[in-house]
């Protein structure tokens, strides 16, 4: 592949010009004739029964054209089939401050706001459940979701044993246990959620700022009881998601229903405060980890426990629990591994996937834990970690299959560039080193179906080529990647490929822009479609070289009429023979390593980040500019989580402390240090041109590396996020800041899983054939 012409070029994003000159049409920019504006009325209580809703005063306000209450949208939905626990508008009870109960459509936003305010809701206030500990106890008044079979406010409970734990512990020369807490935080995209609904002649169209048009399509069909072919969902130009726009949301359903009721287009744009309530962000996670190592520092066994504070609804939570446990084994080589995880409901905005979904928390815990272990046994921490690095082409104890793996190269790059090994040792100055792995797309769809995970269609005629792809470019530049792949295969410029994306009427299925899957999966689909098209073009010009592209197109159309080809991608089965094996497998894992350099002031506790070195095993950079953009964005986001971001709530009130961009602290440009990125290209056997993911993995090592740098500088342990100045001072006084206990959880008997052979690389039917019959 040495002669790649377009792949590997640092080209600008496909929509860069449109965004820069203001031509891009975001959902909130859409103005349709006779359009109404909608406003949701949300609960002021964290936990309450709804006794009555009286909207009569709202209906009487001039300019109000439609009012909805819970009665109008009784059908439950939720992103995962196992958690159909949300309603667009609640009619029975509210579960967090911000839970929607009613909606209005009016001629302008002011009237809509006044009408929402005029709706009278009578509540019976219930005792709120606001912490993991509270959620594990019997509730004072009632459970948040009464119908669940697990006790108290437990949502999910998992327990697994992979490999021979007893032997692992017996072999260990040293064993250490630690407790960690990762605070919740939110995505904070620049663009608030927004949707417009239109109902014409029995057909519904919804434009939305979403990461997955397909999931919105499904939820609308279910709740509105409309067949899929009567609904069209279009992804508007996107101002950022980071996982926060991956669920279907109340406002999307509400604009659709209001459009149906009023017969007029309806728009709803959330306020910044409402975005904090819609949330689905990083779970607060309490973690306990115990690891045994032999005399050489090689891990013999690990036991990891996590407790996730899920907020009020399921969202992706059932998957999030698994993610706090599964990827440990593809980062370090762990021969025997026990994982116990639980998720609880609390009366707070629902948590879900945020960049790194469920894995930054355990990554933070593990990197600090191994450092402590190394210190305890008097071994160099980098060396200890290194001895345990996962190796390429290895099957992990929990059956995850690692193919290309550039962990060694990544580590070496950042260690060398930062001078970590020869760093200056003085109080107040420190460096920290950490590593990570992440999935290039989930190997299993979130709902059972046999369709491909991604499809791309190409249409070619005398005007050139158009690619139809269901994936939503959420600012990461996935459209550019699709265009570059098609251009590479057809021998044209990326700018000559027209794109139609994220429109359920005109584009084929794609499971969306999350899970770091688009380049890998839609990219592979585009590659297949483009290769088929190339073959047709070659035939049309009788394999003559040098025919200009448009001329070739005309020849092809003349010969066969307008042409279309399609490509698709379905990841093979990778997971092992056990229930729950669907979460964690990925056709390829990316790897990252980072060193963070800080000044930490012992007098003030203020930490300043001087520089971050980060290396990322991208497989192959189809567009290095975009990869570096993702790496730098990840570093920036990680530093925010490490140093300042926290989604916290007022006690008793269950009220978000500061749902605003001024008081919810997230770093600005001036707080962001120099970032030096290194791309490691391991050329993955399954990725398109060898490419793997870049959108999430690089976030992971930065958070622990920051904590470790503070430890290096001041000798203190801050076993939780974020590292605020007060905590630094407290740690200087007490030696450590962090959780003191892990609550009692009624863990079930573990599912015992036989580990695979370490060199078993089989997938799909071949793998299944080899499973021990149950």
């Amino acid at each position, binding site marked *: 592949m040495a002669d790649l012409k377009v792949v590997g070029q640092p080209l600008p994003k496909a929509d860069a010009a449109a965004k820069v000159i203001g031509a891009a049409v975001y959902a909130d920019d859409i103005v349709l004739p006779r359009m109404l504006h909608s406003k949701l009325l949300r609960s002021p209580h964290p936990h309450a029964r709804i006794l009555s809703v009286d909207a009569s005063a709202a209906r009487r306000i001039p300019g109000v054209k439609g009012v909805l209450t819970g009665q109008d949208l009784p059908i439950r939905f939720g992103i995962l089939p196992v958690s159909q626990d949300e309603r667009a508008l609640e009619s029975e009870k509210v579960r967090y401050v911000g839970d929607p109960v009613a909606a209005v459509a009016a001629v302008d936003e002011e009237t809509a706001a006044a009408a929402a305010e005029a709706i009278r809701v009578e509540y019976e206030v219930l005792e709120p459940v606001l912490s993991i500990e509270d959620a594990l106890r019997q509730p004072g008044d009632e459970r948040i979701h009464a119908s669940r079979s697990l006790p108290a406010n437990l949502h999910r409970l998992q327990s697994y044993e992979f490999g021979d734990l007893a032997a692992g512990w017996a072999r260990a020369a040293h064993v250490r246990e630690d407790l960690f807490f990762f605070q919740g935080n939110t995505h904070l995209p620049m663009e608030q959620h927004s949707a417009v609904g239109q109902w014409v002649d029995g057909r519904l169209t919804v434009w939305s700022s979403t990461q997955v048009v397909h999931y919105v399509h499904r939820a609308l069909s279910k709740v509105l009881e409309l067949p899929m072919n009567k609904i069209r969902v279009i992804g508007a130009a996107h101002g950022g998601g980071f996982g926060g726009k991956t669920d279907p949301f109340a406002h999307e359903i509400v604009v659709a229903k209001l459009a149906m009721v009023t017969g007029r287009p309806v728009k709803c744009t959330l306020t910044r405060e409402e975005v904090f309530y819609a949330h689905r962000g990083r779970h607060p996670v309490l973690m306990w980890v115990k690891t045994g190592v032999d005399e050489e520092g090689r891990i013999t066994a690990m036991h990891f426990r996590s407790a996730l504070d899920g907020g009020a609804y399921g969202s992706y939570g059932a998957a999030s629990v698994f993610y706090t446990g599964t990827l440990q084994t593809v980062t370090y080589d762990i021969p025997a591994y026990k994982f116990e995880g639980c998720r609880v409901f609390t009366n707070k905005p629902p948590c879900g996937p945020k960049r790194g979904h469920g894995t930054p928390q355990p990554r933070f815990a593990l990197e600090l834990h191994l450092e402590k272990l190394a210190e305890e046994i008097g071994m160099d921490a980098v060396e200890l970690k290194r001895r345990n690095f996962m190796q390429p082409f290895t099957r992990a104890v929990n059956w995850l299959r690692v193919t290309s793996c550039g962990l060694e190269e990544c580590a070496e790059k950042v260690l060398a560039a930062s001078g970590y090994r020869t760093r200056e040792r003085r109080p107040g100055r420190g460096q920290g080193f950490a590593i990570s792995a992440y999935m290039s797309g989930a190997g299993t769809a979130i709902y059972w179906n046999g369709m491909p995970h991604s499809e791309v269609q190409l249409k070619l005629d005398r005007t050139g080529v158009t690619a139809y792809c269901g994936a939503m470019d959420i600012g990461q530049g996935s459209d550019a990647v699709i265009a570059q792949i098609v251009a590479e295969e057809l021998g044209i410029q990326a700018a000559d490929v027209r794109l139609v994306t994220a429109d359920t009427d005109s584009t084929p299925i794609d499971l969306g822009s999350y899970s770091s899957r688009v380049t890998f999966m839609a990219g592979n689909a585009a590659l297949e479609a483009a290769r088929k098209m190339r073959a047709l073009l070659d035939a049309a010009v009788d394999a003559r070289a040098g025919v200009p592209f448009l001329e070739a197109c005309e020849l092809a159309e003349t010969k066969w009429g307008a042409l279309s080809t399609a490509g698709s991608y379905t990841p093979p089965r990778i997971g092992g023979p056990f229930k729950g094996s669907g979460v964690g497998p990925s056709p390829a894992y990316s790897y990252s390593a980072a060193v963070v350099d800080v000044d930490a002031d012992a007098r003030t506790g203020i930490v300043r980040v001087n520089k971050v070195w980060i290396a990322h095993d991208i497989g192959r950079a189809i567009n290095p500019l975009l990869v570096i953009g993702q790496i730098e964005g990840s570093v920036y986001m990680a530093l925010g989580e490490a140093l300042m971001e926290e989604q916290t709530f007022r006690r008793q009130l269950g009220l978000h402390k500061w749902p605003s961009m001024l008081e919810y602290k997230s770093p600005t440009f001036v*707080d962001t240090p120099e970032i030096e990125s290194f791309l490691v290209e391991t050329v993955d056997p399954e990725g398109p041109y060898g490419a793997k993911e870049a959108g999430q993995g690089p976030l992971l090592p930065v958070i622990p590396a920051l904590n470790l740098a503070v430890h290096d500088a001041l000798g203190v342990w801050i076993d939780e996020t974020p590292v605020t100045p*007060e905590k630094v001072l407290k740690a200087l006084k007490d030696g450590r800041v962090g959780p003191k206990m892990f609550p009692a959880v009624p863990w079930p008997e573990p599912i015992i899983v036989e580990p695979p052979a370490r060199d078993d690389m089989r997938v799909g039917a071949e793998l299944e054939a080899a499973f021990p019959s149950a």
Partner: protein
Amino acid sequence: MLRLPRLRFLIPDSARQAAAMAAEGGPTTMLVAGGTDLYPNLKRRQFATDTLVGLTHLRELHEVRGEASSGFEVGACVTLSAASRHHELHAGYAEAAGLVSSPPLRNAGTIGGNLCVDTRCNYYNQTQEWRQAAGYCLKKDGDICLVAPSSPRCWAVSSSDTAPMAIALGATVVLAGTDQERELPVSALYRDDGIDYLAKQAWEVITALRLPPADGLRTAYVKLRRRGSIDFPIAGCAVALRMEGDLVESARVVLSAVASHPLEVHAADQLLTGARLDDETIAAAAEAAAKPAKPLDNADLDYFWRKRMVRVVVEEALRKAAAR
């Protein structure tokens, strides 16, 4: 998005007329300059206002008159950006103006508005819906203080970055009333009350800030905030020193964001006056300055920590001023 309430916007011909319009309109009429403080507050329904009297179109309020040797008169509608870039203003004043919020807000925000910026509190600077859910407080619509429930008063925090510097300089403001103008020391512009924080009549228009001659004054402003931009101060110190050799001839130390008004710490001034500005003096002055600072749990970060940091910002400001 959050919308402004419906407003009448009046365009006066002069500062005097603006005062007259504001006086006539009564409590539901407010003056507005850059609006960077007022508009967000109105969107959150922090004032029951139906009329605004605009000021920024008044040319005379945009002038900077005078020179360093005689002192400058800075028009109230001079933007913070312009003030921060003015090379001849006292270094500490330009520094304070340049540390307010963020570049776009400094391009719109004015120095007069900055002197009058509303006091702040994490229970108050929230939307109407949030405050309803939390329960309203004394400063707007309620009858208790949510930060200090046993207290009969509001402790919202004075958050102006330039006011402490203006006070340290001994600056005055020119106020236009309905039928007269008066001059008032900036130090007399504030009251120790989170609600009624200004000592002028609501309709009185600040037309200018009068800064003293340069005259050997060494000034510095040090601001503590979580991020390098956008954030209001969580502690700040303005210092104006006059040195005689290496002895301090006179000193004024004024703190921001630790009380409901810019906090003058005369104990520190006295300690410094006549002393050699060595580490010991600086530490003692900082200690004295920190004593009356009373941060509460209504701003960013832990208030114990903020109280500890007062010393740090005072020391830094003294060192910086002395080095100028």
